[in-house]
């Protein structure tokens, strides 16, 4: 804080502009805002819907077999490949080389895929086959105005 320079020599002023840092917040002439102490970030949809960014993918629904779960033709699914699939999860599975969205049933050593529509059949793995779960559906997005 205290200079130890000798003062017997003239000190050269630089001809650079003297830039002073501004005070951080705007200094208001009137009241400080009562909301200042409560300021919090707005809701960020991506933060809410995506837990594992590297493992999250979007897939579009085609078909009627999950209606009773509120998943309709044309909906966009948020699928997370990092979540360990459990009984009762809605999952995207690979059946005959194609993606299918169904409920995962894992109880008492039996694994199968169940639709959410009474007019559709269950899917059971064939003899010697394992069911391949691609990812867990965490949300479904419906857009009304695009």
């Amino acid at each position, binding site marked *: 804080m205290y200079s130890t320079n000798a003062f017997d020599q003239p000190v050269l002023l630089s001809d650079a502009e003297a830039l002073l840092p501004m005070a951080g917040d705007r200094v208001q002439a009137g009241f400080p805002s009562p909301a200042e102490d409560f300021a919090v970030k707005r809701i960020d949809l991506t933060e809410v819907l995506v837990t594992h960014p590297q493992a999250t*993918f979007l*897939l579009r629904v085609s078909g009627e077999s999950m209606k009773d779960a509120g998943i309709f*033709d044309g909906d966009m699914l948020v699928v997370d490949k990092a979540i360990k699939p459990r009984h009762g999860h809605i999952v995207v599975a690979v059946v005959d080389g194609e993606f299918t969205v169904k409920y995962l049933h894992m109880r008492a050593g039996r694994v199968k895929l169940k639709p959410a529509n009474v007019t559709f059949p269950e899917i059971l793995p064939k003899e010697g086959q394992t069911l391949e779960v691609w990812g867990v559906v965490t949300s479904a997005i419906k857009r009304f105005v695009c």
Partner: protein
Amino acid sequence: MYALVDGNNFYVSCERVFRPSLQGRPVVVLSNNDGCAVARSNEAKELGIKMGAPWFQIKHLEDEAGLVALSANFTLYGDMSDRMMSLAAGLGPTQEIYSIDESFIGLDGVRGDLTERARKIRARINQWVGLPCGIGIAPTKTLAKLANHIAKTAERKPGSYPADLAQVCNLAALPASDLDAVLAATDVGEVWGVGPRIGKQVKAAGINTVLELRQLSTSTVRANWSVVLERTVRELQGQSCIGLDDAPSAKKQIACTRSFGQAVTDELPLVEAVSEFASRAAFKLRKQSSLASEVLVFVRTSPFRDTPQYNRSIVVPLVRPTANTSELTAAAVQGLRHIYKPGFQFAKAGVMLLDLIPETQRQAELVFAEPYKSVCSEGRDRLMAAMDMLNERFGRSTVHVACTGAERNTREWAMKQERRTPAYTTSWDQVAVARA
């Protein structure tokens, strides 16, 4: 200590994530213009398809062996690479992304069982992104690359190496005699930095395996070959000479060149093509915060065809260094008009931006004729920044200079990409479908 994480058959693996029906089948990915196979699944390799095999030579395997050939989908591969690299970074404190599918990780200070840690990261990448990869761990980068090669070969060809080296291979964890055995079983040509030319030379001197190369004295190597090979041998001996390269240095030249999907004879489509290449190069220029002082343009006919040959280039110097698309495109078009000649079947054209300087080094020039347009330049910079932002958000060429052509998909010189899969992760309208 270093790890090298490398995706297996990367482009094909990316495609299989979204098209599971391709698992277990022979698949190749074709380069720009659907020309050559630049990625092959293991099944395709078993059919004898070599890296870089021209498509017309292997096309018959479509019917004969059920081969599936896809056009390169770089938009997809780039995004999948980002995801993989982000997870690979969890292996250690520092990372060097070496290519689209390879990354070195510095392991200094990482405690615990490195092999186990690598297995967990490998499993995570496979589960989270759907991409299989190999991981090599060793005290030097050259050995880590070798370890990665061993990890992949041990998995793909059972019996070539001890089974516990498959998928993840930690050379630092091997007792000396086991390491010697592994190096003795590996061809010297597999060493990073030993290409076909050097490989022939060392083999002529009786060095056939990596073990034999490692056993040479470094002074002998320097005397008989080069200081570069000496560094490689030191690395093989466990002495780390190559560090992690954190930030890639700015390129000294930027090129954008393409072969045409079909031969072009008229000037206008060449103007469109050259404008497009200049625009793309200008974008890359701005991304690395540089300015260009010269623009090189070339056009050529195909050397493989029996038509009259024409191959000319021209360098257009710029009044002042710039990164502005309009200025660079104008210079490129001006150059093209100079070298264009009717009556030839042009097969390829390109634009190169030369004499690059960092944008902080802008110099004023002595102007005799026109008043210095410094007022315009800041506005133009903002225009370029806005254009880049729009193109990044809505897709390349959302905003473009008019001379690149209005009807984007019907441009006659546009690349043939007849077998490209959708942009599954970057375009809302092109996502994969799940049947309900």
